């Protein structure tokens, strides 16, 4: 007899996600991924000035707070055939790339690690042994000191002893599947705190070029941060020196702490290389941080495309094969709600048919989520760091081969096993290392350009509406923290007439379509679940996707479908 288990709220994610599963014995036999929030930002951006659209769509998500703004300005620039100066392009990469590295680190330590690291075990650690182990594991990291570990242990102990557990309240600390030695738990909690300090420092790269984070500023046609090496207030040598210092710090933490921690922790959870296997198709249009207007052509010969059905080769991406279905989502289509629609002709007509809250169970209904279901050529597709790293590896990208193979050897794993909970975690760390190195290369190019007089950050040629065509459409792609993102805009008479986002978390967290589960759901069937009241194991797998559910809700209206909303206005 199957038992119904609900995980709601799925915490340590962005947004609101609910997971319903059927469990039999100690195994999950079926699963439903349910996004329980809808904001309708794409309806709000209708009829607005397309130069403002980034500031609206950016607020889809404050975790990946850069990505929707980048995709938006890229889409508008594609529509207006609006070239961007080289320095602005490089600055955009620095902002997006630094935010993505930060995002990956925050995800691992603050949103995921507590699925593997037992805070309640920290007082049991031998501090000297922890310091010795850390020195061996991470010899280059300066904060791995006995004093530091002692202070952290004391602090954790004080919280636990007080009986007021703060954010650790009701954690599954007595779950039998916490496996790490207390010393590793202590090291990890110490790095949890270090990472908080690190992220608030290194994110100043965003502040220097975008004024603040979260939600830094962008600009259609370039970037607003002017460069003048002889001015006190613009980008000058002082600010460039700060950026250089922060990039150095970024590389140091990611290479010397984050990646080694991931490998050490996965070493104790190596069976997760065989747990959480999901849909065997992957989409990647570039390495992490790549973004473009219109057709993708990433640097270094990276072939944008897909790995299909687990066959380790990359086939070309054809946007016409990208269709979105609403058969499990609370939407309908004006013609045929069973059909899939390509984003250019897509529709969003929210149509809530679920139970009136409060409710206990949604999965008895065909429709159970605010996510649409994108499919490529009929297939559910995984996007994200794993898709990108796997694609680069399959293509024989030398840097990726060099980065991945030693890790596979260390974990005694085959490339195919990367399609797993552990594989997604590992790929994210590898990508963070690669992107932090790329930050340095891009920064060097920016500095060399400035030395050569290449200081233009904004192109005024297409700024005025009078230079725009009456009708235009454009697409912007970006490979962002959680996967492939695209914004699709139509502009009519100087205003947005149609806006659509196809978002990583829609790809990954979508419900069923064409009789197949979405990737989150597929990853959970089958899956261990020892204690239904403490669903630690499925949380590990769901978190490995880095859910971002505000991004997983969306979409546009093309043909006046806001009509459906008149009933609530």
């Amino acid at each position, binding site marked *: 007899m199957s038992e119904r288990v609900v995980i709601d709220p799925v915490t340590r994610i962005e947004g609101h996600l609910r997971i319903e599963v059927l469990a039999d014995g100690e195994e999950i036999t079926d699963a439903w991924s349910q996004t329980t929030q809808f904001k309708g930002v794409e309806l709000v951006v209708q009829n607005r*000035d397309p130069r403002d659209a980034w500031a609206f769509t950016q607020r889809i998500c404050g975790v990946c707070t850069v990505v929707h703004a980048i995709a938006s300005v890229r889409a508008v620039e594609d529509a207006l055939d609006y070239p961007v100066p080289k320095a602005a392009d490089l600055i955009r990469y620095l902002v997006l790339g630094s935010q993505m590295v930060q995002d990956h680190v925050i995800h691992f330590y*603050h949103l995921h690690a507590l699925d593997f690291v037992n805070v309640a075990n920290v007082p049991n650690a031998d501090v000297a042994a922890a310091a010795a182990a850390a020195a061996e594991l991470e010899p280059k990291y300066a904060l791995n000191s006995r004093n530091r570990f002692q202070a952290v242990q004391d602090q954790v102990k004080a919280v636990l002893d007080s009986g*007021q557990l703060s954010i650790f309240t009701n954690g599954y600390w007595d779950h039998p599947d916490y496996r790490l030695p207390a010393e590793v738990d202590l090291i990890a909690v110490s790095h949890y705190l270090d990472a908080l300090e690190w992220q608030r420092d290194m994110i100043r790269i965003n502040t220097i070029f975008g004024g603040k*984070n979260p939600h830094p500023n962008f600009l259609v046609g370039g970037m*607003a941060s002017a460069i003048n090496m002889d001015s006190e207030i613009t980008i000058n040598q002082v600010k460039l020196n700060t950026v250089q210092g922060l990039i150095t710090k970024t590389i140091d933490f990611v290479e010397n702490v984050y990646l080694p921690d991931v490998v050490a922790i996965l070493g104790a959870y190596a069976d997760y290389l065989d747990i959480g296997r999901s849909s065997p198709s992957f989409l990647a249009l570039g390495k992490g941080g790549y973004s473009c207007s219109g057709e993708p052509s990433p640097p270094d010969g990276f072939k944008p495309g897909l790995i299909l059905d687990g066959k380790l080769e990359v086939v070309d991406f054809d946007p016409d094969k990208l269709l979105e279905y609403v058969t499990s989502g*609370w939407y309908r289509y004006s013609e045929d709600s069973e059909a899939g629609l390509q984003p250019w002709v897509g529709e969003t007509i929210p149509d809530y048919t679920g139970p009136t*809250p409060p409710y206990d169970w949604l999965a008895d209904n065909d429709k159970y989520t605010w996510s649409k279901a994108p499919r490529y050529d009929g297939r559910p597709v995984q996007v994200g760091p794993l898709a990108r790293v796997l694609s680069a590896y399959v293509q024989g990208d030398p840097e990726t081969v060099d980065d991945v193979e030693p890790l596979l050897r260390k974990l005694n794993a085959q490339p195919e096993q990367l399609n797993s909970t552990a594989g997604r975690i590992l790929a994210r760390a590898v990508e963070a290392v690669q992107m932090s190195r790329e930050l340095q290369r891009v920064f060097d190019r920016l500095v060399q350009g400035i030395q050569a007089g290449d200081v233009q950050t904004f192109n005024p040629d297409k700024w005025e509406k009078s230079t725009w065509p009456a009708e235009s459409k454009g697409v912007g792609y970006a490979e962002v923290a959680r996967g492939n993102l695209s914004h699709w805009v139509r502009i009519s008479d100087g205003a947005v007439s149609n806006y659509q986002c196809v978002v990583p978390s829609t790809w990954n967290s979508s419900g069923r379509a064409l009789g197949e589960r979405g990737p989150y759901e597929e990853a959970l069937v089958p899956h261990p679940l020892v204690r239904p009241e403490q669903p630690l194991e499925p949380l590990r797998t769901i978190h490995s996707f880095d859910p971002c559910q505000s991004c997983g809700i969306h979409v546009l209206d093309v043909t006046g479908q806001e009509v459906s909303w008149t009933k609530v206005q």
Partner: protein
Amino acid sequence: MIIPDGELWVEGQETLGQHLERRGVSRRRFLEFCGAVAGVLAAGPLAAGKAVAMPSAEVIAQELENLEKPVLVWLQLQECTGCMESVLRSGDTTVEELILNLVSMEYNELIMAAAGTAADEALIAANKKDHILVVNGSIPLADDGAHCVIAGRSAEAILRESAENAVAIFAVGACAHWGCVQGSRPNPTQAVGVDSIITDKPVVNIAGCPPIPEVITASLVYTLTNGAPPPVDGQGRPLFAYGDRIHDFCPKRGRFDAGQFVRTFDDEAARNGYCLYEVGCRGPNTFAPCPIIRWNLSQDWPIGAGHPCIGCTEVGFYDRFTPFYEVLPNLGVPGTGVEADATTVGLVGLAAVGVGVAAHAGVTAFNERRATKAAERVYLPLVGDVPTRERPLDSAGGAAPTSGAPPGPPSNGSSGPDASTKEGDQ
């Protein structure tokens, strides 16, 4: 709530009982005090004719002795998590200081360890205690709240449950303040701010999209150390952060007064750091501490990095301040006597201010402390909009506001007369 007095809370390592003992308060005196408290507690329900099991002095003593840190419930409703991300960036009172030393944050979806039922049970347990409530996110009222559901309950129901025993309520961020982007035209989900739902308690609005993290943490620490939330303006925004216009403390103000303006991004003026007013800066209309506190460990701020302020601490900025790159109207001739012009515009804005104040008025003494700073507010509906504060109230409350009746009683956000009224109004 026990208010920290600086000594009590050092290191967070002693209980109240230990603390009192150390400070020479005898157990006997403490029990007498608790007995008095028990008497006070008993008076309420007894006077109201209710039969309630009252705690004894011993029970109260035990509770108090074990109480150390204020409990914090931090909800995230319909939002983007940018406000919690902002808190992670707070430089002085850091998030780790906040959650490990200053308070016991027993519910927050972004960083709490527990999930699912265990998380929801933590929320329910925390809601039963006196607690400080922080809310990120708006409350969508369309479709009986189906646009934001947590643990099977609507955002409205979750908010009402958490507000019941809250001793102080902070609406943090533009979503919780007034609805932000999803609450802008056409507001597809009927998103409203916290103080449209919670009308029987004061709500402090920490404005911004997101707010500066140090303003969020300082508002909480102010409350912990003073025993009451900070004084606020007519919109419920703390004066220590929102008492002055960006324009008045902008380092580019000299350029503005001298008529030295950026005309196009990256022009010669931009490369010399001139004023951004003519490319759309909303600093003259925006009350926020950005030029003073700045962002991300005081590294910089939007205007400092060359982009105009978009006015994200002001209600309705997505409707009233757009298109963002169009110059603010009626702010006088560049370089000439702008203060006079701003004052004139300010007088026009007073009508709008009056509406905003009235919506808040009369609930508690808290509101009476709201300073007259609000009168300095400059409302400039750029596209002819009315201040959006009233719009969500209209759509949210159905017939209630238009009929002049107070908003309806708390519902569970599920069914019942409140929900059916909304349905009928649609």
